[in-house]
């Protein structure tokens, strides 16, 4: 008997295949328009004046000398913002332009619009601002002290959230504790912030082409600041050169729209690399203390932790980042008793918010370093301690939430344990590229020690704590062609590749077109939280399913049968009672459909005071193994190989999944070894790619990836989000591997507890030994 189910592989470009990106050819030929490539006739250029002080009162602003420069059209400040003076993702606490007080170095004060970039720069220099400098609050630990003066009307504490459960008096046979630090990481997307705003001819509205992660959130915030109805503001996705969380908050959107409306001409703004470091939020630096209690067999008894997140001057998503950190403090391990405290505070440092991993990166670095300490204390192998505590589906988290998602943690550990090790061919003078110092003749092969380390993590998917999280998609069929419309921000991740795959497999029609990504359809939510495949994928599938039902009904009416007899097999409509088959492309000739659907995930609830509640939607799991070569004398590290086993539910596009895994691991490796924004008195010391280093192709080792494909019953098409997990536990895996090399070299070595690692963290061990 023939299989009447949907055989996905029989639709060319359907689910489970890896069709090429629809924008790939244009991108390869330089023809794809990124937001920074846009221009318009009669266009002016805008630029932002930023605060040179961490904390200061603005005494006066004199724009007259700047306005006198030929070619300068307008200068706007806080008093020119017609609507709401502030914006923000969760609380509206950040001024469009600082009016009376500046709270971080880089805060916007004014914007200039002029004929060109050069004139803008001269005008910015000519604006006279006098400041009364105020004492700056730079230390997050001081910020939470109630005696510290508030730097913002909303206070210095953005959120406190504890997670308390079980027997707080429980004590383990084995107790390990330490303090951990995570530096401030930058998203470092290559496509700098950029937008082109075009005013309506009558001046009553504006169209803004912008590189963003969430068009409708921008729309709401921008329209409020412009004092325009949302219908008068149209946001169009300009080509986005990466995002990674850094485009979830507004940057130049309001400024560029104000300038366009003020001049009645198209205005473009684009940031330089150094300005970009000031212009978007970063990954929170965090100080974390953790104490793990376990039985002598290594079974977790209790977790205690304290998290301090430096949110910088404005709230952004700090409160949600904190919730992610405290609710993921246990990692992918069972534990019944927990005493976890967390606080996110305001300082006069750079504002922090979303970056890939969103709070879980910080928590995971601490809990994985702890698991290694615990393994050592119990005399167990690093994989064995994790195996003994591995979480499964149905286990209860420290929030009281039951993990209903597929939780293949044991499978991940087994997968990692089976992975072969790379050969030790490298690290000789004949292969200089294989040495930690590269071909620079710095490392002596005799000083190279190999290390192996592991990291595991759990990551929530989608938005949490009762957020009304939904996505909208519209499916039209006309002349046999499917057209999909959604506002899902394509930032490089490839939603525009899988959306047509979903339509092809659901409808059996191979020709799928994509409409413009803009606000002329309902919100898709943000391209963040590993959520778009689930949410916008769910919306596209639901819209296509609705069209499919209408097709079935139409044909059933014509044939006088029950619509339930129909199914789609590949590209054919099948009558399951007669076995008759017709190509779908033929069936829909002359028919037109237009269906729009809002897809929502199941509801979640806010955490209570003790951090209890079903606050998250779903979870994904991953494990990493790092193999490193360490120049034990100089502290130089070469990552030889990264291996990973990732729970993906189902790989809708295996090539895209590989891309997310490899790219995410690169960012985790970067945090482990090189990436940190260094601030001194609130000033960034390294706002360039000369001094803020991200991994190059020479830094990235081969990645060996194994996917666990157990379709998640709650996920549309069974597919879990895959974007964030690769970044999360790759960082502690690399550090654990370096620790292993140090332990191998010296029998034991100081516990590594800070990222990014600095060569001196390794080399000082040598110096200490030499001093013995």
């Amino acid at each position, binding site marked *: 008997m023939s299989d009447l189910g949907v055989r996905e592989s029989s639709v060319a470009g359907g689910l489970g295949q890896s069709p090429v990106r629809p924008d790939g050819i244009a991108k390869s030929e330089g023809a794809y328009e990124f937001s920074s490539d846009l221009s318009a006739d009669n266009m002016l250029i805008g630029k932002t004046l930023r605060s040179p002080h961490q904390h200061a009162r603005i005494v006066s602003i004199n724009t007259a000398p700047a306005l006198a420069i030929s070619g300068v059209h307008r200068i706007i400040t806080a008093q020119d913002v017609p609507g709401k003076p502030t914006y923000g993702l969760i609380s509206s606490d950040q001024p469009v332009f600082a009016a009376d007080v500046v709270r971080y170095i880089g805060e916007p004060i004014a914007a200039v619009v002029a004929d060109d970039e050069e004139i803008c720069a001269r005008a910015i220099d000519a604006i006279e601002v006098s400041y009364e400098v105020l004492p700056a609050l730079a230390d997050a630990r001081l910020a939470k002290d109630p005696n510290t003066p508030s730097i913002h009307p909303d206070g210095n504490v953005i959120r406190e959230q504890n997670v308390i459960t079980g027997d707080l008096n429980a004590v383990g046979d084995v107790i390990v504790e330490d303090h951990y630090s995570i530096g401030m990481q930058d998203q470092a997307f290559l496509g700098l912030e950029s937008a082109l705003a075009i005013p309506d001819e009558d001046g009553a509205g504006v169209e803004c082409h912008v590189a963003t992660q969430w068009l409708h959130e921008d729309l709401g915030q921008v329209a409020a600041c412009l004092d325009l109805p949302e219908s008068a503001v149209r946001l169009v996705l300009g080509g986005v050169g990466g995002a990674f969380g850094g485009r979830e908050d507004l940057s130049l959107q309001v400024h560029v729209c104000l300038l366009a409306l003020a001049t009645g001409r198209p205005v473009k703004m684009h940031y330089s690399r150094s300005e970009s470091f000031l212009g978007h939020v970063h990954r929170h630096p965090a100080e974390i203390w953790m104490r793990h209690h376990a039985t002598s067999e290594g079974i977790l008894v209790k977790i205690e932790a304290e998290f301090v997140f430096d949110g910088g001057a404005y709230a952004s998503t700090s409160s949600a980042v904190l919730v992610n950190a405290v609710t993921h403090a246990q990692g992918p391990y069972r534990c019944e008793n927990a005493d976890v405290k967390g606080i996110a505070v305001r300082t006069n440092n750079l504002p922090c918010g979303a970056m890939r991993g969103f709070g879980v990166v910080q928590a995971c670095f601490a809990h994985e370093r702890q698991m290694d300490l615990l393994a050592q204390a119990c005399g167990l192998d690093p994989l064995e301690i994790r195996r003994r505590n591995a979480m499964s589906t149905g286990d209860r988290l420290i929030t009281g939430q039951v993990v209903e998602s597929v939780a293949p943690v044991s499978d991940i550990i087994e997968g990692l344990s089976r992975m072969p090790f790379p050969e030790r061919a490298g690290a000789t003078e004949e292969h200089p590229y294989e040495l930690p110092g590269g071909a620079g003749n710095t490392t002596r092969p005799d000083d190279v020690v190999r290390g192996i380390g592991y990291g595991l993590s759990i990551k929530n998917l989608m938005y949490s704590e009762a957020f009304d999280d939904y996505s909208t998609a519209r499916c039209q069929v006309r002349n046999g062609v499917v057209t999909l419309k959604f506002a899902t921000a394509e930032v490089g991740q490839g939603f525009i590749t899988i959306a047509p795959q979903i339509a092809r497999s659901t409808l059996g029609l191979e020709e799928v077109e994509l409409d413009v990504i803009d606000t002329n359809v309902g919100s898709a939510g943000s391209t963040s939280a590993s959520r778009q495949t689930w949410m916008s994928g769910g919306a596209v599938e639901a819209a296509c399913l609705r069209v499919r039902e209408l097709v079935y009904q139409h044909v059933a009416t014509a044939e006088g049968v029950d619509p339930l007899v129909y199914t789609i097999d590949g590209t054919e409509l099948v009558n399951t009672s007669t076995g008759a088959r017709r190509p779908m492309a033929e069936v829909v000739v002359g028919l037109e459909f237009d269906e729009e659907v809002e897809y929502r995930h199941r509801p979640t609830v806010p955490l209570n005071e003790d951090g209890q509640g079903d606050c998250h939607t779903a979870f994904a799991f991953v494990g990493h193994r790092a193999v490193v070569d360490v120049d034990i004398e100089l502290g130089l590290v070469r990552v030889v190989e990264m291996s990973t086993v990732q729970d993906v539910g189902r790989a809708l596009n295996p090539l895209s999944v*590989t891309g997310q895994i490899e790219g995410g691991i690169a960012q985790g490796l970067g945090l482990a070894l090189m990436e940190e924004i260094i601030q001194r008195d609130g000033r960034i010391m390294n706002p360039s790619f000369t001094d803020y280093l991200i991994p190059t192709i020479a830094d990235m080792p081969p*990645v060996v990836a194994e996917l666990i494909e157990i379709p998640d019953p709650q996920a549309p098409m069974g597919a879990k989000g895959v974007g964030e997990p690769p970044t999360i536990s790759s960082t502690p895996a690399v550090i654990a591997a370096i620790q292993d090399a140090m332990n191998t070299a010296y029998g034991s070595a100081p516990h590594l507890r800070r990222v990014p690692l600095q060569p001196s963290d390794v080399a000082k061990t040598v110096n200490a030994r030499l001093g013995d």
Partner: protein
Amino acid sequence: MTNIHDERHFELTVNGERRQVVDVYPGESLLTVLRDRLGLTGAKGACEEGECGSCSVLLDGNLVCSCLVLAASATQSSVVTVEGLGGATDVQTAFVECGAIQCGFCTPGLIMAATNLLERSPEPPTDEIREALAGNLCRCTGYGRIVEAVQTVIAQRGQGAS
């Protein structure tokens, strides 16, 4: 006050064509002139200091960061940008098909660097590929598919030659 709009103009040879460049500031980089004066936006700017390789072009056949080249110094040279490759070269096709492109901002620069590498060295081993492309940053892919794309071209050309 100096008139910053002093009439300055010169000619550049870009993608085989003589192009008039008018009304420029004397210090403009080749990248700025290509993008803002000649409308060739294939070369991208992401760091403005020669660290990221997004602005890579060929200057008399040599791979350069166009953000580091003074446009007015290139009047006697031949400039080739990604637009000048003609489209659908085997390198470009391999990048598309191997998944070497995500956001694509680094792609034109990497295409130029990979094209140049394979002209200089038709069958580079992996470590030479990595060393040659180490001046081109990519934040999305983790580089695995980029290595794969270059190796695919090498394999295809090898088969074609045999």
